């Protein structure tokens, strides 16, 4: 079983290393992420639209606010689940 797991890990790692060769260079201006029209739009417009300088925060708390609400709900649910599972002494 341990050999199987080792083979699986080596295979997955090898696949990741092989696929990683095709990634664009770090900070490459011509990479697809920088070429996408939304990237330019967020950089140019986010300060006027959201009123904050930090584009990361503008995306997290304004454009993707639904997503962040879901993340907070996940954390809350996880905390409640741990209370339900582990806090048996009160019952």
């Amino acid at each position, binding site marked *: 079983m341990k050999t199987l797991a080792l083979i699986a890990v080596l295979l997955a790692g090898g696949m990741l290393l092989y696929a990683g060769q095709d990634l664009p260079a770090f900070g490459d201006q011509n990479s697809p992420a920088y070429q996408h029209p939304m990237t330019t739009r967020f950089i140019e417009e986010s300060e006027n639209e*959201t009123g904050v300088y930090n584009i990361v925060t503008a995306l997290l*708390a304004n454009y993707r606010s639904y997503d962040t*609400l879901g993340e*907070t709900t996940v954390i*809350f649910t996880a*905390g409640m689940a*741990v*209370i339900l599972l582990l806090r048996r002494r009160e019952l």
Partner: protein
Amino acid sequence: MSGIQESIIIRTVVRIMVPFIALFALYVIIHGASGPGGGFQGGVIFGAAIILYAMIYGIEDGKKIMSDKLNRILSSTGLVLYAGTGLLCLVFGGKFLQYNAVPLFPNPAETAAILMDVVEVGIGITVLAVMISLFFDISPPETEGDEMSPEEVEQ
């Protein structure tokens, strides 16, 4: 209980450090709009401050500042603050979480910035309460340890 909790150096350093860690956490939450930071990070730092206090001064003392009841209330308060901000936008005729709709300031971008801060504070409150609640839940109950330590300090 253990050696770490009796060390006067560690107790003093923790007592001095905890307020500053908490202050730094508030800074990280509020500064999230104009620099690195935000609700998740600030909430975790604030939770770590109280966890550090509870580790050194004992779980019972930690529960005096952050009781289970307060934990439960806070962890839901943050979420209510977030969802309530979204509902406030609905009340003023916008979409859910469309901050520009709230007529708080003449400039809609300014309103959005303020409401984003409210949302970040909500995230921070939930994260800190859940962090502390997790730590208290997985920590072993203190039974004999508390009775041992005063005798050992006297010796």
